[in-house]
């Protein structure tokens, strides 16, 4: 494991923005005084004339992003997930999503893995908030390769996109040949007994959980659900029908995120199978090193294994 490359998806976001700046002259980037943390500072350095800092005023930033988009720009607006989806929720809904404007929200520092800053900054509700907004696409990449691909794909897509990035350096899962398509979940490995739908940094945990389950004679199918909206129901339901049990794993509240989306899809398919959700259990986070917090809140391979066994027992 020593040679595994670890990169935060926010770093990949910053680099991808710089890459975009070189190929798309209509890309502009906004930030609300967090350019060093969100990594939009990389774009600022490369393309200072196309970078705008609105200061600590996220609501105004989303509105400015909307107005810029009406003049033909592809606008990336960045701040922490807490402020993008939380503070500026209504601006995102009414000024960006309702008019269906071409604004990409680059929300970094999502989830518990923010770490030491604690609960005020650990947004575990953003997917739920963004999912409820019509027109919104939600992408939660699992590693730096996927984060780059998501940014490039979002720039091509016309309309609002919410991209969720993390602060914590996470292991690289994919290689340079990885193909990313918005709305198309990826079956990472096939299995027969249980389907594990994971998103973001929980994809790597799901891959490890597969090994742990295999040691106990349980065959798990791993699906990377990088796009939470629109949800790839076809891939998920086909797998659920095959294995007969589903676990969802996300660094987000169990309310309203991937778990809810998958449960809704499975229930409405008419072919109900058990769905067990792993996520933050309707509670606030706390300060601490990110890696420790992930274990404290049960967001790890061991807990995916437990949930997988639970789902199988419910068959």
């Amino acid at each position, binding site marked *: 494991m020593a040679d595994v490359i670890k990169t935060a998806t926010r770093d990949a976001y910053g680099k991808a923005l710089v890459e975009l700046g070189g190929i798309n002259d209509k890309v502009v980037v906004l930030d609300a005084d967090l350019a060093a943390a969100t990594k939009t500072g990389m774009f600022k350095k490369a393309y200072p004339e196309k970078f705008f800092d609105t200061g600590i005023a996220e609501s105004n930033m989303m509105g400015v992003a909307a107005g810029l988009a*009406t003049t*033909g720009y592809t606008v990336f607006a960045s701040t922490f997930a807490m402020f993008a989806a939380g503070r500026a929720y209504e601006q995102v809904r009414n*000024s960006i999503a309702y*008019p269906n404007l071409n604004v990409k929200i680059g929300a970094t520092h999502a989830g518990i893995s923010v770490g030491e800053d604690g609960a005020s900054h650990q947004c575990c509700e953003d997917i739920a908030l963004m999912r409820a907004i019509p027109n919104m696409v939600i992408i939660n990449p699992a590693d730096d390769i996927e984060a780059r691909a998501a940014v490039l794909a979002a720039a091509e897509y016309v309309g609002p996109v919410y991209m969720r990035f993390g602060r914590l350096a996470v292991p690289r899962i994919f290689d340079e040949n990885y193909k990313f398509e918005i709305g198309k979940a990826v079956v990472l490995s096939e299995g027969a007994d249980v389907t594990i739908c994971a998103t973001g940094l929980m994809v790597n945990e799901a891959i490890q959980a597969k090994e742990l389950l295999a040691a106990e004679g349980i065959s798990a199918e791993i699906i990377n659900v990088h796009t939470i909206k629109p949800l790839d129901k076809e891939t998920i339901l086909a797998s659920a029908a095959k294995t007969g049990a589903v676990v969802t794993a996300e660094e987000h509240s169990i309310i309203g995120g991937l778990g809810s989306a998958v449960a809704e899809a499975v229930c409405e398919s008419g072919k109900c199978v058990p769905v067990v959700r792993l996520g933050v259990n309707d509670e606030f986070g706390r300060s601490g090193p990110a890696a420790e917090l992930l274990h404290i809140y049960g967001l790890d391979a061991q807990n995916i294994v437990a949930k997988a066994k639970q789902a199988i027992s419910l068959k």
Partner: protein
Amino acid sequence: MDAVIRKQLKIKACKARMGIIEGVFNAKSGHPGGSLSCADVLTYLYFNHMNVDPQNPKDENRDRFVLSKGHAAPALYSVLALKGYFPVEELKTLRKSNSMLQGHPSMKYTPGVDMCTGSLGQGISAACGMALGAKLDGRNFRVYTVLGDGEIQEGQVWEAAMYASAKGLDNLVAVVDNNGLQIDGKISEVNSPYPIPEKFKAFGWNVIEIDAHSFDEIDAAFNAAAEFKGKPSVIIANSVKGKGVSFMEDQVSWHGTAPNAEQYEQAMNELQQALAELEA
């Protein structure tokens, strides 16, 4: 201002007011008071100031208008209809389920509407973005936004005000429709934003104060704003809520109430009479 133009604008504004009453009466809901108070400013902008073409409503070089006080949609729709963006008859469909005229302005449904607004405080930020887009592109279109005086209680307005002056958006003109009333009463009593000019001055804006119902003052203010460089301009337009309909004037109860049939008749008669006098 040229006397002939002034008279033409007064006639247009009177017709715009009739369209407001027509729309709100048929909708049986809506906001006549704050629509009537900004009718003269909107009439002036669309008929004597902004570079817009109803035949080409998406022209990328057009001037932009954002009705930040989106509840005054009946005024915007009435002026857009008079300008030729869509038939005046459409005004009778306001707020109905098959109408292009939503309760609050929507660029998705209505030709000529440049931004979805209605949630107070948000329009001015979008207007800043449009003005920034013009600067970035080296294009010379200008951006106009109308705010309510009650609306400036929203914190986002001041985030935008700070940003517009910090970025030197002199291609942006904001108007505060200063009619003194909001739903819950006098704005001085609900949560006073006074003094308004001093606040915008402190935020780095070029401030102009006018009578919102004098086309000479409106004309002078917008021309002065166009000449002013380096800062955004705000026109504090001192207006009368419900202006033009005697029983609605300066009455908070007409903020968000539609006239009944009798009131509709009276309002339209008053406006017809005013129109006849103007056209005589």
